């Protein structure tokens, strides 16, 4: 309550000072922001709309009426279905591995001071800001030099590599704000370090770990550039789409894209609501 009053007071003051000018500026910005958001969302609507398009041929270029039939025939193109499963499997495995490894790094960086943490920070910054093209190209260079066969394994290795730093950053942010006195209380009550970690610390940082894993999953399932370099003859969902752009995309791609979009939005909304409830409790 008091927070809300505090939040509002400076705003009303400036409104009182120059009501008219502020108002027009604000509504202009409001309109502009919404125009940009609409622009961002237009291609998504096109994708969703064309998943309901009653196209006659195999390809999906012109609008020819509404239908649900592609949702029933979603798995009719065998290669595409296989590519989707490959993508999902790689995303699950790589997000779990990078979740575990990234949590280790994030926890260590947030909790301890140790030699080499500066170097680690730089490497993490580098993996987050390096162009994907360069990461993909250098991984391929390594695999070529080692004469390693490319496939699902090399894709997973690559996805874990670029996800670790994101997970670590998210977990570190949570660990830094952790109230140490809770752990001290546990220790005072006779809990060992190991017990304290699993019974007290881990449950507190779990939401951060979870959102890190979700981000890693999203990065993996959507990744095209690095995957393209490390895939060899293996095909993932984005690679399949890329391969058929020249000939045109079948409506099944739109259906899968729509379902992935819907699932992603749903998960994001649910975790957001749950984390807000958690804060209120």
């Amino acid at each position: 309550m008091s927070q809300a009053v505090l939040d509002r007071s400076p705003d009303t003051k400036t409104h009182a000072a120059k009501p008219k000018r502020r108002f027009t500026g604000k509504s202009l910005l409001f309109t502009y922001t919404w125009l940009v958001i609409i622009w961002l969302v237009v291609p998504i609507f096109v994708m969703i709309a064309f998943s309901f398009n009653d196209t006659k041929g195999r390809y999906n270029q012109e609008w020819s009426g509404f239908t649900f039939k592609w949702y029933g025939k979603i798995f009719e193109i065998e290669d595409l279905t296989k590519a989707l499963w490959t993508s999902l499997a790689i995303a699950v495995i790589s997000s779990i591995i990078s979740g575990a490894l990234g949590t280790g790094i994030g926890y260590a960086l947030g909790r301890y001071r140790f030699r080499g943490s500066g170097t680690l920070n730089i490497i993490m910054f580098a993996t987050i800001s390096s162009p994907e093209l360069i990461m993909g190209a250098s991984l391929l260079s390594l695999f070529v030099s080692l004469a390693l066969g490319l496939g699902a394994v090399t894709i997973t290795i690559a996805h874990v590599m670029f996800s670790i730093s994101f997970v670590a950053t998210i977990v570190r942010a949570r660990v830094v704000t952790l109230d140490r006195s809770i752990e001290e209380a546990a220790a005072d009550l006779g809990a060992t370090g190991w017990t304290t970690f699993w019974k007290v610390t881990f449950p507190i940082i779990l939401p951060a770990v979870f959102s890190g894993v979700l981000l890693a999953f999203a990065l993996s399932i959507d990744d095209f550039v690095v995957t393209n370099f490390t895939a060899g003859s293996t095909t993932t969902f984005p690679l399949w789409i890329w391969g058929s752009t020249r000939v045109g995309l079948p409506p099944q791609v739109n259906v899968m894209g729509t379902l992935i979009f819907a699932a992603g939005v749903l998960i994001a909304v649910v975790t957001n609501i749950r984390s807000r409830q958690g804060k209120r409790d």
Partner: protein
Amino acid sequence: MDRLKRQLTPYLLVLPGGLWLLLFFAIPMIAMLSLSLQQGDVVNGYRFTFHWQNYTEAIEAYNTQLIRSLIYGAIATIILIILAFPVAYYIAFYGGKRKPTYLFLLLLPFFVSFVLRTISWRQILTDEGPVLGPLKDLGLLSDSYHILGTAPAVIGGLVYNFLPFMVLPIYVALERIDPRVVEAARDLYASPLTSFRKVIFPLALPGVFAGVLMSFVPVSSDYVNSEVLGSSSTTMIGQVIQAQYLVNSDYPTASALSFILMAVLLVGIFAYARALGTEDVMKVAAR
């Protein structure tokens, strides 16, 4: 014993992830550098010979695409700053309780595959599509008018795909500004424009810089947009690198090109940081 265990804990925690980053991020860079100085071909294998000609040949053959990529990157980044700043400003100062909702809406495109989003634009902008078709029917555009295959289409696609990378860092910087500082400026009779120019914008600059870093680098090395929305006259360096690696298997040339691109981007980042840094220092000194 206990102390030793405590001292070792962070290293044990970091070890698996750190090793992974070393093996699959740092070492590949070295492998790429080594490959860029080798001679040979796929059939007979490669030998390390300090073959610097790979670099001179790569620059000679592909400097057009390299320069084009940097120009596209620069244009797209400038457009991104202009487009993103007002959005970040509105959300940071007027978003109120809806801030998380606005940020969520800005991130919506990320729930759709990058490739699919770009292809969606091709569907929208195609010659007889939903945008150009009606305009042509009305006679507002000549029948031969097209957007796809041109530089504006490619740059437009790049701007579209990387807009959130510019909005978010600027938003974070603006969010941090204490509203009382802006009020103080107004109380001291600064006009809205002056307080924006002298107070808000300088405080937002770190965010703009982060946004430039986060968008210029991926934009100028992108190859999806120019492949999907462009034509042979808009070929970017990423497409060349991709083709040399994956189609022609000319690994030495490809890795030399990748290294040149990385070096140029790094130099650009440092030059900009320095320029921005000294400017900030000058402002502080002037006060």
